[in-house]
């Protein structure tokens, strides 16, 4: 396991989807995509190399996106052996269907979408709910589950509090913990998460909002803060 330390999500990224960046001039005429202006050029080139059977191209693709695939599946299924197997299955599907990739969206989203659907189908087969419809909104079950192994008073120390929150994230339902990972760790914009998961943007925001509110509520006993 590793922990990624980064500056964080807060600063919103500039939108990439401007007409010129997509190879469309201001007059509406299609312009030949310039490599410098085309963020998908490398994705298309890599996909074309794999489809053409160029030696080493597929391994390069797997190496490039294995982290993302692993994170999505691991967050969903939380089982190391299943994660490995499903991640393999994801890339074999990608290999088989890559000729259908049109280069209209980032390869990253396309592969994450395959990983998401492979993991989701696995959970459905095992009858594991993706969303926990029974949990309460005020976060008490989360507190009860997590508090077993933790001293909430001691969580006043920063390290303890962060460990408590990490344990609580692990106990969230698969959908919520995967959305948190995609948004905060992979730094995907909501629109891209929507394409990956097939969920409406409002639904994603709602899940993120409520999960974060639940997590923040865990700190209240130790810090006496008011829930946002």
């Amino acid at each position: 396991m590793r922990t990624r330390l980064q500056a964080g999500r807060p600063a919103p990224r500039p939108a990439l989807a401007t007409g010129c960046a997509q190879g469309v001039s201001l007059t509406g005429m299609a312009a030949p995509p310039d490599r410098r202006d085309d963020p998908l050029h490398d994705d298309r080139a890599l996909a074309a190399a794999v489809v053409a059977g160029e030696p080493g191209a597929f391994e390069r693709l797997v190496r490039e996106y294995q982290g993302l695939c692993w994170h999505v599946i691991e967050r969903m299924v939380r089982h190391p052996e299943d994660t490995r197997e499903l991640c393999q299955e994801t890339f074999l599907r990608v290999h088989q269907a890559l000729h259908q990739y049109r280069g209209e969206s980032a390869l990253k989203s396309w592969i994450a979408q395959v990983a998401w659907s492979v993991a989701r189908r696995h959970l459905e087969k095992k009858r594991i709910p993706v969303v926990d419809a029974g949990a309460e909104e005020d976060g008490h079950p989360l507190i009860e589950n997590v508090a077993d192994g933790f001293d909430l008073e001691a969580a006043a120390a920063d390290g303890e509090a962060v460990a408590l929150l990490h344990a609580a994230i692990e106990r969230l339902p698969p959908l919520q913990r995967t959305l948190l990972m995609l948004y905060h760790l992979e730094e995907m914009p909501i629109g891209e998460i929507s394409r990956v998961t097939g969920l409406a943007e409002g639904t994603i925001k709602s899940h993120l909002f409520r999960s974060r509110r639940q997590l923040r509520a865990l700190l209240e006993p130790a810090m006496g803060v008011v829930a946002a």
Partner: protein
Amino acid sequence: MNTDRNGMPPALDPRDWEAQEAALATPRHRADALLAHALRTMPVGEPPAGFAAEVARLAAARRPAVAAEDAGFERRLLQGLLAVFALSAAAVVALFGGQWWAQAAGAFGSGTLQWGLAGAICLGLSWLLSDGRRVFEAAAHPA
């Protein structure tokens, strides 16, 4: 978390969303700072060393098998379509051939029609020996 029967959470007020985003982006309370930090540093696993090479080997091993399966399916489909076409053509000629022959003989004369038929048979045979042979070979053997 409250969700409806389809797992949909209740509607969210955009102002609540914006307020929470702002609190995590520029935390004023320690709880928000800790939560933002915990979200950015959540522990995640990584694939084992050599995973990419292993998957690439698996994909390479599967490729010929999948290609052969596809070719087999296409061959059977082509054979089926050729058989359906031949049967349909034979049925149409059996049903309407006599009628067409009588009408054409009335219009062009029976001599002209016999010479025309001989020409058509020659053209058909030469097609069978060139393009037709390729079609039948494709139906009999995978690409």
